[in-house]
């Protein structure tokens, strides 16, 4: 069966520090991968998606970047965090041609 792992679960970082959140999927190949951010009262905002290794699409301009160095690995990064980067970050995957997305357990990032 397929599983998705996302870590860390919680993270407190100072303003201006770098960020790296990692997500890996097991039990499937060539998944579509997604990074969402959830802010209070604003639902889920799609940040990035990827349909293959090295292929990243950005949905909104921001202080973050994403990379997909391996087929089942998706990384969310920032060189210098802002207070506004605080939130709950969710990684998800879907089968190409499939219907729904499957989510990881999320990372709560607090920038102080």
């Amino acid at each position: 069966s397929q599983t998705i792992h996302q870590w860390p679960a919680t993270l407190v970082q100072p303003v201006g520090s770098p960020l790296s959140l990692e997500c890996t999927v097991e039990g499937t190949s060539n998944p579509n991968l997604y990074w969402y951010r959830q802010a209070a009262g604003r639902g889920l905002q799609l940040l990035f998606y990827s349909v293959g290794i090295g292929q990243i699409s950005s949905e909104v301009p921001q202080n973050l970047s994403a990379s997909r160095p391996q087929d089942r690995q998706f990384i969310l990064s920032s060189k210098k965090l802002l207070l506004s980067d605080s939130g709950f970050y969710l990684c998800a995957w879907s089968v190409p041609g499939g219907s729904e997305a499957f989510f990881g357990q999320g990372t709560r990032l607090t920038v102080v």
Partner: protein
Amino acid sequence: AQSVTQLDSQVPVFEEAPVELRCNYSSSVSVYLFWYVQYPNQGLQLLLKYLSGSTLVESINGFEAEFNKSQTSFHLRKPSVHISDTAEYFCAVRHATGFQKLVFGTGTRLLVSP
């Protein structure tokens, strides 16, 4: 582009009462519709989905949703809620063809009290 509106940010109900969580969508093409549930500090779990066929879809824990194309709605209902149903519920939509980018509503927090 598609969009989703969940008008109710919070719905308080008593245990064993019926509940309806509203979802309206906007799209110019055929869509797939989903309801996800999120418990505190956890990821989202798929509750039910509409792809095609019967407009009434059901989940294993008693929730149901009905796709209404003329009203562009996909409301979630449960005839009798439990304390354990307390969670945040998200409606989502994506185009039925092409790349499957899910667009979510802002969520509805269901608060079930005894």
